[in-house]
């Protein structure tokens, strides 16, 4: 793809017009060798990030966190507390940066919006009948419009995995295009739910599909199925955004979500970003972590680096 970048640029926008063209393109992408991809991901996981590099990575990871709560039990009080934590993750240390965004269900958006107004912290909302996506298109689009109207500036949508696995790529594409339109100015993150796509070949195809249809970010998971973000899946998606930019000139972000709980995990992802797509993506505008408990571990490690001692969990807020 990269070698034919210039000739491909004009062609890609036309792909969505025909199911056949989409299928031919997606099935023509180079395959992913499972063993090789997993080996590469594991190898990057052995990098040793210490001292100054660790401090830098922790602050960057904090800025990349999409602080998330997606529970049936969420209440206005709960999400307000979370939003307050997003603004000042470590009350004891004003030098601690704020997180990238807060991510909640559409019904909770207005309460979060009040807290975040003017802060620079983004407000993301999962729409499109999250997490299954099994609702009529009109319902999903109404979900998106409501979230945007209530103040969300980022929408995390789920793709139609049923249609994708059945090979109805056009249907998936059209839904993403329609959702992007419904978003207006809000950024669209396209959740591939890689745990349900099962193969890396599918992950690569779904990544391209999401980007071709106009997604601003591609995101691994809802966090609601047993297999969420993994390093090899994120590697395949990073390769996809790298190749997509080479082919079209447009940069797309990546968001692994679900199951990333420790600083050590987060640093492995940052190393992977650094060595796969490079510095252009090492920014909250282009890489995010969908996580909740990760933040406190980052804060504990940050405190340990600055003070030299581990503080107990009671010194960090639980929201």
């Amino acid at each position, binding site marked *: *793809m*990269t*070698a034919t970048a210039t000739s491909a640029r004009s062609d890609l926008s036309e792909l969505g017009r025909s199911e056949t063209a989409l299928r031919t393109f997606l099935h023509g992408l*180079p*395959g*992913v*060798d499972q*063993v*090789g*991809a997993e*080996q*590469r991901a594991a190898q990057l996981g*052995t*990098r*040793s*990030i*210490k*001292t*100054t*590099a*660790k401090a*830098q*990575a922790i602050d*960057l990871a904090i800025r990349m966190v999409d602080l998330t709560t997606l529970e049936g039990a969420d209440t206005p009080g709960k999400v307000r507390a979370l939003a307050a934590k997003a603004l000042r993750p470590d009350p004891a240390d004003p030098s601690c940066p704020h997180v990238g965004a807060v991510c909640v269900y559409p019904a909770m958006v207005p309460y979060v919006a009040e807290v975040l107004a003017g802060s620079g912290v983004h407000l993301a909302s999962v729409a499109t009948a999250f997490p299954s996506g099994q609702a009529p298109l009109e319902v999903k689009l109404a979900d998106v419009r409501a979230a945007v109207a209530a103040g969300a500036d980022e929408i995390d949508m789920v793709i139609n995995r049923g249609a994708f696995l059945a090979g109805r790529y056009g249907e998936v594409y059209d839904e993403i295009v329609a959702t992007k339109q419904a978003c207006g100015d809000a950024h669209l993150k396209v959740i591939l739910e890689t745990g349900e796509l099962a193969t890396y070949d599918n992950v690569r195809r779904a990544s391209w599909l999401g980007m071709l249809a106009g997604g601003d970010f591609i995101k691994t998971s809802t966090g609601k199925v047993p297999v969420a973000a993994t390093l090899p899946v994120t590697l395949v998606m990073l*390769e996809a955004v790298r190749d997509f930019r080479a082919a079209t000139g447009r940069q797309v972000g990546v968001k692994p979500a679900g199951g990333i709980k420790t600083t050590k995990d987060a640093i492995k992802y*940052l*190393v992977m970003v*650094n*060595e796969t797509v490079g*510095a252009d993506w*090492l920014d909250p505008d282009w890489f995010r972590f969908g996580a909740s408990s990760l933040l406190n571990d980052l804060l504990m490690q940050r405190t340990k680096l600055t003070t030299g001692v581990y503080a107990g969990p009671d010194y960090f807020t639980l929201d």
Partner: protein
Amino acid sequence: MFEYAPAPESRAIVDLRPSYGLFIDGEFVDGEDLHKTINPATEEVLAEVTWAGEADVDRAVRAARTAYEQVWGPMPGRDRAKYLFRIARLVQERSRELAVLESLDNGKPIRESRDVDLPLVAAHFFYYAGWADKLPYAGFGPDPKPLGVAAQVIPWNFPLLMLAWKIAPALAAGNTVVLKPAETTPLTALLFAEICQQADLPAGVVNIVTGAGDTGRALVEHPGVDKVAFTGSTEVGKAIARAVAGTRKKLTLELGGKAANIVYDDAPIDQAVEGIVNGIFFNQGHVCCAGSRLLVQESVAGEVLESLKRRMARLRVGDPLDKNTDVGAINSADQLARIRELSDAGSAEGAQRWSPPCELPERGFWFAPTIFTGVTQAHRVAREEIFGPVLSVLTFRTPAEAVEKANNTPYGLSAGIWTDKGSRILWTADRLRAGVVWANTFNKFDPTSPFGGYKESGYGREGGRHGLEGYLNV
């Protein structure tokens, strides 16, 4: 930018003596002829070792003969196995110490000595320990016998791993050994001698004589040895073959290579690029089975090369003890000169040379990862073994042409095939004249898998059930 801070592995775990004697008959024996061994990354002197003369070699062979006749030969296989298992466990217990010392003396990155060399060393001892009491079931008849005393000469690229490849099967089969490590990398073999003492291995079963070419010659030409096993250059291998011709000595040789790594147009490109990098830059390219000739199908050559260059720009060259180093130091000044000479020949013959921007340390022996494009079969860089981080890129149009070019070399140690199509893997592998063929991977080693060459890459197999044959009277 995300710069990784230095993450050096501590060398405090290694306790080096200022000088080492020879390990003969279970003891270290002081010698006269001391030579320095250096850290190729800094040129700092690590220790002095003894270069064994003919008299020393003779004593070592006699000690091995006595141990063979009186202790190791008559010992039941299950008891030999106990010693081998014990050695394997001690190697695991002391693996960090051995890994650090290997990186110090050889120049290879700690990531590789820690994650590749040492786990494989232990695995080889465990694997052959398991064979020691099962030799009647190895497929060499109901009661295969050992040969006697094995003379083993190993190279500097994987010092401890090559020691394991040699010593483990020899001992499992009931032989005793005299082993000569390479002159630039003797230290882990001497630490292994300490492990033999720690394991209470009977005296004389393993003898280690350090030295250079003369020591090796004295060892393989000694009339008291029954078996010669050599890993190293084809040139020396031929000299050894001539020296043992007409004697009773059984000979196995594992020599040079110029492996083709074939990338078809339907290959998983990202993984193929990893495989190309691993194939040629693993261990600074000091690998006899390195994928030093990339054969890429013309229709994807541009894409593959672009990805390869981008990936090469990420390689971290530098301090072997830094845990984030990917490419370490060249093992010796001599080897560096050889790599430079052949690379200069590549440029002079018209191939295009490319290296990523990378800062090399001022002291020590260093060579940046390098690729040559526009290479033809007639170029020296496509024909001669460089044994360094230098890749020659050639293209092909059809599978038949790929096979023809891959086989068009006097060597035949290994080859790689990259394609998503299973039938093409089998078709290609059937036609490649190479001892090891990797499909959608490269430089993958396992003690259960036989390894060895065709043509001028040597004969005999090491590893697996086949690896026993060279040490049995069959």
